[in-house]
């Protein structure tokens, strides 16, 4: 999931011919002032933090300015923010347009129907989750058929547009579909889409590109998003690695088993801190890398939970033993290992030779990992 900040989304929109306010990305108060003074961005203007979280307006991450000095001051104020955990490093300075109405439009995937779905509402400018269902038009678009005239007419009718602005909206909808398809997007969202005179203009842009499609769009692989530095390293090594709030590390193989392991840990009072999914591998070196990465996250304990399939138990055991000798002094951690499945006996033997006792039962293993992290083991009963 490559989440693009507003300005990157708008760069794509511009490529496809979507109408946008004039604007400029800046990274300092001085740049903000120059952007409006050099005339590239007309005054009055709006200055917006380029962060991924929503609710920027309410959160003070969007300000207005009528002079260069005001723009500089607004930029200074926003650049200082730590917005819902994201440091504000970039701002978008844009002209403030005379808006008649604010609309909502997005294109995303309906998994159940296996079809893209176009969502539109005449109530734009607010979080779409807060718009009543009956004010949202949902139109499935078959991938073979694409966006057709009748889909667009339905949206334009729902928006209550006619005349030249309806024609502008018709063209905009084609662009949204094009971006969704051609850029392999998971989400293309414009909120608000503003009516400005006889045209519709994208005031915001939320574009999420599918990770798996970056082989077709290498430019997106480089885009920073909300990953932590360790997550970024993991991505490069093709290890699924997610940092959470707690302090027990979990290494498992497969998303489902990893999640199940977190569930069990939490149930016994542990707080999972790192989710590391080995996936399917038969390379002990990859397992070693995963362990070294885990060590750098400084977990209080680590629970290794493997069911051997494609990833065989002996492969994991070899990788683990190799890693244990390489972990720097300050990064060592207590380990609870549970390995089952393909080549289970060989794996247990290898671990035993390295002084590690492998367990068999998930429940007892989870309790041991919780205890090793220094927590009191709670009863596993579901409340």
């Amino acid at each position: 999931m490559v989440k693009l900040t507003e300005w990157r989304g708008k760069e794509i929109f511009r490529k496809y011919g979507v109408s946008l306010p004039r604007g400029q990305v800046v990274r300092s108060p001085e740049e903000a002032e120059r952007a409006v003074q050099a005339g590239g961005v007309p005054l009055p203007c709006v200055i917006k933090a380029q962060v991924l979280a929503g609710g920027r307006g309410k959160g003070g991450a969007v300000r207005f300015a009528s002079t260069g000095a005001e723009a500089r001051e607004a930029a200074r104020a926003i650049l200082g923010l730590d917005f819902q955990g994201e440091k504000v490093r970039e701002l978008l300075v844009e002209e403030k347009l005379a808006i008649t109405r604010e609309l909502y439009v997005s294109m995303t995937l309906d998994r159940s129907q296996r079809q893209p779905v176009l969502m539109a509402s005449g109530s734009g400018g607010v979080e779409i989750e807060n718009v009543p269902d009956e004010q949202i038009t949902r139109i499935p678009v078959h991938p073979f058929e694409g966006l057709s005239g009748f889909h667009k007419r339905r949206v334009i009718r729902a928006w209550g547009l006619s005349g030249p602005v309806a024609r502008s909206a018709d063209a905009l909808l084609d662009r949204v579909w094009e971006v969704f398809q051609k850029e392999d997007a998971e989400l293309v969202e414009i909120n608000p889409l503003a009516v400005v005179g006889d045209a519709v203009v994208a005031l915001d842009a939320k574009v999420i590109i599918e990770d798996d499609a970056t082989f077709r769009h290498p430019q997106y692989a480089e885009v920073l998003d909300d990953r932590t530095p360790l997550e970024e390293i993991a991505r490069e090594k093709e290890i699924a690695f997610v940092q959470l709030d707690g302090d027990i590390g979990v290494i498992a193989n497969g998303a489902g088993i990893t999640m199940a392991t977190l569930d069990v840990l939490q149930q016994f009072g542990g707080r999972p801190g790192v989710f590391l999914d080995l996936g399917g591998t038969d390379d002990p070196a990859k397992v070693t890398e995963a362990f070294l990465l885990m060590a750098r996250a400084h977990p209080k304990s680590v629970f290794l939970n493997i069911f051997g399939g494609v990833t065989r138990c002996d492969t994991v055991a070899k990788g683990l033993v190799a890693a244990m000798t390489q972990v720097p002094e300050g990064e060592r951690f207590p380990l609870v290992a549970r390995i089952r499945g393909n080549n289970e006996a060989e794996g247990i033997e290898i671990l035993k030779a390295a002084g590690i006792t492998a367990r068999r039962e998930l429940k007892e293993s989870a309790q041991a990992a919780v205890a090793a992290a220094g927590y009191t083991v709670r009863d596993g009963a579901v409340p």
Partner: protein
Amino acid sequence: MSVLVDSDTKVVVQGITGHQGTVHARQMLAFGTKVVAGVTPGKAGSVVEGVPVFDSVADSVAKTGANATTIFVPAPFAKDALLEAVDAGIRLCVIVTEHIPFHDMLTMYHYARLRGARIIGPNCPGIASPGKAKVGIIPNVVFRPGRVGVVSRSGTLTYEIVNAIKEHGLGQSTCLGLGGDPVVGTSFVDALPLFEQDPETDLVVMVGEIGGTAEEDAAEYIRHHVRKPVVAYVAGRSAPPGKRMGHAGAIIARGKGTAQSKLSALEAAGATVVTFPYEIPDAVAQLLRDRGTR
């Protein structure tokens, strides 16, 4: 027959000359599956694990009567491989490949449907019926013939659960791993009727995950159409919203697709919901006993 595969299933391995393709061709053969052909363009005439390799699926079907395929080719070429299989007349396509863009899968899914073919996967362990055939990569060791059907969105977790069923002294009719991607060829709703109608299945274990609404949709289906007992487990109760958990499918978005919404729906539909995977075998055994005494 069992669900989707039986001893008449003749399997092609697309990408058989790759490492994964070779390993799993061997495992499928060891399971007793009729692996009749491999396909790797340009490698016609080679033999891998005793299986003849062809340049195209069409050639392999013409020469061997293959009727199912396992696709191991890399993601950028998976769409082509699937379309090729469908055009060659293959009707059961298990896609093991992971990281296929969902835009590709949309085309693949609807094209297969148009042509009357079924996709399982992508990014899935496939399907196996102990004593009959395996099309995919589920480890052979977890199986034992029996009457419990298993259908799951997970990979390894499924192996774990299937194995636990075996260790509890029970066996499986068919085990079907759907894959956890955003767009899958076969969903719970598509799979449940197959188990419901399968005379060799007495009970269905359903293993879900957070993200999407596949489990909620399944609950709706179970409520109206499934008479066999269902034991349901959903992984991800503890997952924080919005964090990516490996599968693209395992994202909680907009308050939908939470473990809680899935578990409530399944419970309301009459399924026996368990909290932890290790509770499944007991729940299964209990339900089978109840059924036996009715």
